[in-house]
């Protein structure tokens, strides 16, 4: 149980970084941390005690299949990692452009529009 809870702690830490920090690079790092937390959470869900990686080797008996960990969460996390990488590339390019316009990474200096 504690494992799930620690994943949630990690996620809220990322969220805190997003809310409290003014530096836009720090905000990017907050999102990266949140991604890590969710990925770990999903993989932990699929873990089976004493489990092995779901890869069949030649000559493996069918009985071994019961020891495989859940492959589906791994497929989800693979997709989620890719999405995280894509979002990061987009975010960093936005940061670079914002720096070019404003000469700083400070969100309170960048912020001209008011929600």
């Amino acid at each position, binding site marked *: 149980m504690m494992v799930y809870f620690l994943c949630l702690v990690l996620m809220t830490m990322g969220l805190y970084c997003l809310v409290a920090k003014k530096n836009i690079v720090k905000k990017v790092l907050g999102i990266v941390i949140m991604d890590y937390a969710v990925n770990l959470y999903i993989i932990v869900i699929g873990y089976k005690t004493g489990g092995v*990686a779901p*890869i069949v080797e*030649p000559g493996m008996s069918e009985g071994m299949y019961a020891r495989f960990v859940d492959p589906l969460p791994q497929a989800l996390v*693979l997709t989620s990692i*890719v999405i995280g*990488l894509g979002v990061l*590339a987009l975010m*960093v*390019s936005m940061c*670079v452009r914002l*720096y*070019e316009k404003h000469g700083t990474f400070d969100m309170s200096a960048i912020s001209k529009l008011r929600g």
Partner: protein
Amino acid sequence: MKGMTLIVRTITDFVVGFIVVFGTYIVLYGHLTPGGGFAGGVIIACAFILLLLAHGKEVAFSKLGENTAHFLDSAGALVFLLLGWVGMSAGWFFMNTLPRGEQFSLFSSGMILPANIAIAFKVGSSLFLAFSALAIFRRRSFRAVIEEELT
């Protein structure tokens, strides 16, 4: 952009080939061992990024030109989509209709191997492109912006 010191460049030349070979292995054996098109593609992209960082952009672009990378980026995605569409011949999108081959051999499991290769091309070239765009991007001076506004 400039490259790095001689030591870095020499070691880069030595290592890049191995990285590409390792990436290719990860891609091709994705259906038998851990790995796959995505991880292998990132490794191959890292090899070219290493070249870019160590030697500067001319050398890196001479190995993988910008136009080629753009082409591979779109073409890889398109090939993957078409592989899915091939399945429509059997009635369902993404149905694996290609011959399955023999278990545990490299050329087995139908669509999976070509799909892995297509994804690897797509991922490798697009990440290389994105990184090169980020690395080359230069902030124009404030004066240049002002002059442009005035004209």
